[in-house]
């Protein structure tokens, strides 16, 4: 296909009209002080979308126990194998509980499969994103830490679903 180039006058071919137009446009942006798009991050934050996938956390049921029944579905589905669970027995109606539950945040890719696959909504990708650390070993979150993160107030009010009791 052959493009028909527009015929330019000699004045247009000197580049000057286009250059002047451009200069006017950029100059007009200088005094727009109340229309700046900069977000001064640590002090101001974006509102997160409701389905934001941040760090995975463990949720607590209304009975005060973790909801996880140690079925290990999340461990199996996790693509980078970041989740590691050691199961244990309990007298509660759910009969099994995670003795250990670690998520290696150095491996986690925030895909959300664990949340999707969990039959009891025990693991959840919360709205936390400031996860950097100077030490890799500190990036392996233990069960206590995951539960504590799960109990934290979300950044956005009303984001978290109401917790359902684990039915026996």
């Amino acid at each position, binding site marked *: 296909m052959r493009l028909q180039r527009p015929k330019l006058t000699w004045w247009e071919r*000197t580049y000057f009209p286009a*250059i002047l137009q*451009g*200069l006017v*446009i*950029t*100059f007009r*942006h*200088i*005094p*727009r002080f109340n*229309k*700046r*798009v*900069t977000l*001064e991050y640590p002090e101001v934050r974006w509102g997160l979308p409701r389905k934001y996938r941040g760090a995975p956390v463990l949720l607590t049921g209304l009975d005060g126990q973790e909801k996880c029944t140690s079925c290990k579905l999340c461990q199996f589905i996790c693509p980078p194998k970041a989740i590691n669970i050691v199961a244990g027995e309990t007298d509660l109606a759910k009969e099994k509980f995670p003795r250990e539950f670690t998520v290696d945040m150095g491996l986690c890719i925030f895909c959300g499969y664990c949340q999707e696959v969990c039959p009891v909504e025990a693991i959840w990708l919360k709205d936390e994103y400031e996860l950097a650390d100077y030490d890799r070993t500190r990036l392996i979150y233990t069960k206590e830490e995951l539960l504590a993160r799960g109990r934290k107030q979300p950044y956005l009010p009303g984001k978290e679903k109401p917790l359902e009791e684990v039915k026996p």
Partner: protein
Amino acid sequence: MNAWLAILLPAAVKIVAILAIVLTGVAYTTLAERKVSAWMQDRKGPNRVGPFGLLQPVADGMKFFFKEDITPRQAYRPVYLLAPLITLVPALVTFSVIPFGTSITVAGKSYPLWIAPGMDLGLLFLLSISSLAIYGIILGGWSSGNKYSVFGALRGASQVISYELGAGLSLLTVVIWSGSFGLADIVAAQKGHPWFFLTHFLGFVVFLVAIFAETNRLPFDLPEGESEIVGGYHTEYSGLRFAMFFMGEYANMITASALLVLLFFGGWNLPFVDWAKFGPVWGGVLSAAVFFTKIACFLFFFIWVRWTLPRFRYDQLMDIGWKRLFPLALANLLLMTTLMVFFGFGVKK
């Protein structure tokens, strides 16, 4: 002994003062660049270090000091280490012949506000020294041992030969009209006379376009061309050596602005103002202040253009240099000399 001191002391004071002013100017031009570019893009720009980010240049400088100075293994070491100096030093030397104002009279003795007063070939000196800066670019790019750097160096070399001609010829008319190569004489010729950008408009436009190429600023920053050849000639440089290239570029911008002001915008002159009336000290100070204000306006213009225009293509640049600016400068020379010789225009002595 006393006679030597009387010459050396004022010169030393002037050198220190002008270097301090110029280097501070360089630092704050970088800040202005970041601020103005941010505003043009509806951003806020640096505002964390000091009020309105005013201490940002200090932070930048400290960062440059503490950065690792890396020399690539394939680089040709002596030239590689020397090249940033070759860019920076001529950029600073040019300020020795730039007059910054009239003169300050203290205790019956008059001190002109420039380092080398009486330099009547100032313009030639300035042009030749300031075009040395390109050697730093060529040598730095070549000795880095990196093909992208060499591309940058080659572009710099061919850019400079296509622009020096047009730039030099466009200035010739100014020299002919004012009858001197001395920068102070050219400024004096514009006193009580329309500034030369009005009478030499064609020459002014040619020189303005050429000076953008000479200072390696957008739209002619082909030696850098970060979107095409990584960082061009300074790809391999880091730390203080990169800072030298950076400072050299901005110092060259200030020289270019000073040159534009001196040659086409009447230097420190203002219409209907005679600095001699303001007294022996204040006249000089005010004239220097006016001169620096005009330079600042041109620096803003440089920044403004940089954040507006995209980079020209390589063949377009050659085309403009050889087939547009050079004939225009020649025509301008012919026109101006004709006006002067046959119609009596020009500055009467």
